[in-house]
């Protein structure tokens, strides 16, 4: 997955959406659930839209849904997608209730069941990806986008970067990735004052003190981390994926 040469998908997310990155790291389909009234909601919110409770948890949810509608996009505002058009997305009526806009892997048929996953897109953000509940291999165009390769599926044997390893989200993501067999995780530490909580020690985990004034690993980020600059070395695969846990 080359994320450093060329454009990436939109990065900006609200804090409420951090659970999607956690789910993608853990390989679990989790949605926001209100412990007070059991309401499941999407998109992520800062309060339960049913009872207004503000203590929300992320829990494993039913991955099934029905594809209500789909569209193949031929014109995008984003250079990342412009290079990959046409790109297909859909609107899924999830078994849990909410409507979920999802990337559609090839073969999804409108009106038919789909199964959703949380995956990591090329910007290091958790996104919902749907695939047909029943594959129709004949109808699949091999060149159709998005494809499996547009999302990180399994951290096993991968070299991964977690931009802010010291946030709660960062801790969770690192532990999950190492637990799932990642070969090497590199994590940024935004603290320069030495008061950072003790870093988790593992031979597969490398920490760098990085003043992360930029939320994205820029050239400056690499210089600060004393890592090879992927642009100047021509090696765009220093990492297989980036989990951007800074907000």
């Amino acid at each position: 997955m080359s994320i450093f040469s060329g454009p990436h998908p939109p990065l900006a997310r609200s804090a409420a959406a951090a659970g999607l990155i956690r789910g993608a790291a853990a390989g679990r389909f989790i949605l926001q659930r209100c412990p007070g009234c059991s309401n499941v909601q999407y998109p992520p919110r800062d309060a339960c839209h049913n009872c207004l409770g503000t203590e929300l948890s992320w829990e494993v949810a039913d991955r099934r849904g029905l594809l209500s509608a789909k569209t193949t996009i031929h014109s995008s505002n984003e250079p990342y997608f412009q290079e990959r058009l046409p790109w297909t997305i859909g609107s899924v009526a999830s078994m849990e209730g909410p409507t979920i806009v999802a990337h559609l892997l090839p073969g999804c048929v409108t009106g038919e069941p789909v199964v959703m996953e949380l995956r990591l897109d090329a910007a290091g953000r958790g996104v919902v990806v749907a695939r047909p509940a029943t594959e129709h291999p004949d109808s699949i165009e091999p060149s159709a986008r998005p494809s499996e390769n547009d999302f990180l599926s399994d951290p096993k044997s991968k070299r991964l970067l977690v931009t802010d390893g010291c946030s709660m989200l960062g801790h969770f993501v690192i532990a999950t990735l190492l637990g799932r067999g990642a070969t090497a995780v590199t994590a940024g530490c935004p603290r320069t004052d030495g008061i950072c909580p003790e870093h988790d020690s593992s031979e597969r985990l490398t920490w760098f003190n990085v003043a992360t004034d930029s939320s994205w690993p820029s050239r400056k980020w690499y210089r600060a981390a004393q890592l090879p600059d992927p642009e100047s070395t021509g090696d765009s695969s220093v990492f297989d994926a980036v989990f951007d846990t800074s907000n």
Partner: protein
Amino acid sequence: MTSPRMKYDGVAVAVPVTVPYERFSDKSAQWWIARALKMLLDGSGLAKEQIDGLALSSFTLAPDNPVSVTQHFGLSPRWLDGIALGGASGVVALRRAARAVQTGDASIVACIAADTNRPGSFRSLVTSFSKFAQDASYPYGGAGPNASFALLTDYYMRTYSATAEDFGKLAVSQRANASSTPWALLQKPLTMQNYLDARPISDPLRLFDCVMPCAGAEAFLVMRDDMAQELGIPFARIMGTIERHNAFSEDVIQHRGGWSVDAAELWSSAGVRPEDTDFVQTYDDYPVISMLQFEDLGFCAKGEGPDFVRTHEFGVAGNFPHNTSGGQLSTGQAGAAGGHLGLVEGIRQLTDSAPNPVRGGNGIGLVSGFGMINYDRGLCSAAAILSGWN
């Protein structure tokens, strides 16, 4: 539960103005607002000091906000409202302003919507339109509202057997209407074949299903009717209005808007029926949305939109004059001004100042608004029934 709605008696809606649109503009939103305000003053004979109420809608005002504009233009209103409801902002501004005038909180309210359009400014609007869009729709292809409306058009077509030709008929007739509108950016005649052959944008939407972002301004005045009479300016009256937000949130995909919650009350409060109207100005960011309005406002039943389109003609001489200036599909979408376009054209029709006039009839028209795709559907709906001044 709900209390009965007070009538809009004694309120005049006047001086419909449009600052001619430009595809791109290096001017600011403030420049476009100033042009609109000047046109309101010139059209009414009022002095700037007499404007004591201001309702303002703009997406491109930042870092300013509506109160900044008062200092920018030397206004000192005693009533000020910023209405950030996109395509519903025109009717909502009308509703707010009418009540302000009735209660005496303001005497003369200028309702102005204006936006500029620099290359790239539409992209920056859609990238950060809302939290939900940022988290859960924009990252899915980066196509903004085109993709959202494509999804609901796809659903509508399959559920109600609408065809591309049905949507094309609306686009083609609006283009014909635009031929009389001097500021319409798209005036080249459009045939059904042109419509069908246009490049795909986001299936099933084609190029001429989508509005062209541009710069422009739309505005009108709301005041007491005796004041309008004293000034000797023609005006329209408000027979009834509604607004509704986030209706039918349980629908898995949007196939109806909030109008259907309130349409019965709209017609009964106005004391007229759908067939009494001479024209309808819908919010036409995409043809499917016009079809939803025909259904949800009671011109036909749910699901009959396609058949309604097949059996009606939408020019000023047709049996259902619709978007008589060409609508946004042909004049362009000047940001929030797109939400005032239909209302301004409706006032023009009812004050005998439309370049493409609907002849005869009862002097009654319906104007409708729709706005704000926060995530997967438009949240705001609004409508007003207006009558002519004579």
